[in-house]
């Protein structure tokens, strides 16, 4: 897992963006950027260079699930690892995210340990 990889954190709540970015920094990932919904995030992703996407689900504009579907539909972005960090906890939603190709799913409220574990698991699979 490359600690210098560029990571995009997408959440409509600035509090949550700050929490996730700080936790990433504690884990050694300092190359992070943020967006407040899918509409803002998608052009950033398309402009290139991002190696990991962490996104919320429930956002105005474009939701996280639609962002995920857009990413998977774009040949340039299709292989981007995506971790969903969301309060959406209905089983049908988790199933939908999995079917849309999410790499990991963390429900809020979460702990630093859970976030670290899910990120590690995603990159173990990719690197392994």
């Amino acid at each position, binding site marked *: 897992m490359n600690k210098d990889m560029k990571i995009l954190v997408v959440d409509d709540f600035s*509090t*949550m963006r700050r*929490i996730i970015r700080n936790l990433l920094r504690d884990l050694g990932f300092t190359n992070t950027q943020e967006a407040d919904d899918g509409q803002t995030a998608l052009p950033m992703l398309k402009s290139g260079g991002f190696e990991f996407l962490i996104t919320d689900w429930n956002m105005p504009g474009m939701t996280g*699930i639609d962002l995920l579907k857009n990413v998977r539909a774009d040949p340039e972005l299709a292989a981007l690892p995506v971790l969903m960090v969301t*309060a959406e906890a209905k089983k049908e939603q988790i199933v939908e995210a999995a079917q849309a190709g999410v790499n*990991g799913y963390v429900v809020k*409220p979460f702990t*630093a340990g859970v976030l670290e574990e899910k990120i590690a698991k995603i990159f173990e699979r990719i690197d392994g």
Partner: protein
Amino acid sequence: MGDPKTLQALAEALSKSGVVDEAQRSEVLSIVEREFSDFSKRIDALNQHIVATVNDASRLTGSEGSVEERLAYVLEMTQNAANTTMDEVDAISSITDDDEIQKHAQNILVAQGYQDLCGQFLQQIIQLINQLHEGLNRLGESASSAGLKAPGTAPVGDADGASAEGPQLKTASANKVAHNQDDVDDLLSDLGL
């Protein structure tokens, strides 16, 4: 009130039918008129009640700001408080190498996630109050003009796929909701993730 045209039509229909004599006809008409009048009074009372309720509700949008504005203020206050807390956490983290202190500082940071979760509930409530206001306004307009009409409010949410619903209350539909990260992990592992 007993709409005179309706009563006239009813009287004519009864006469034509020939199944009632004059005495029966006038008895039927007087019963109908009495019931009409009683019903009409009840509708009037209901209309007045609705108009008064709408007025009461609109008082919630008085000089101290609407309920929505006040809730939006709470949202902003919690965000500011969370940011202040995180500023302090950053300050503590930057002046210590003690792992224990760092760990507790990180826990305080993560705990600020309450602001996101409570904020989502507040946003839902603000949206509900907006819909309630719209519904009441329509009801008030109907009541003060043409009597009672169905408000015709459409439930929110979309039909296709899983839409965003925000945080789930612990009591909500137990089986359909993952109650913790372990539930999520179990479900995902069933799906091969």
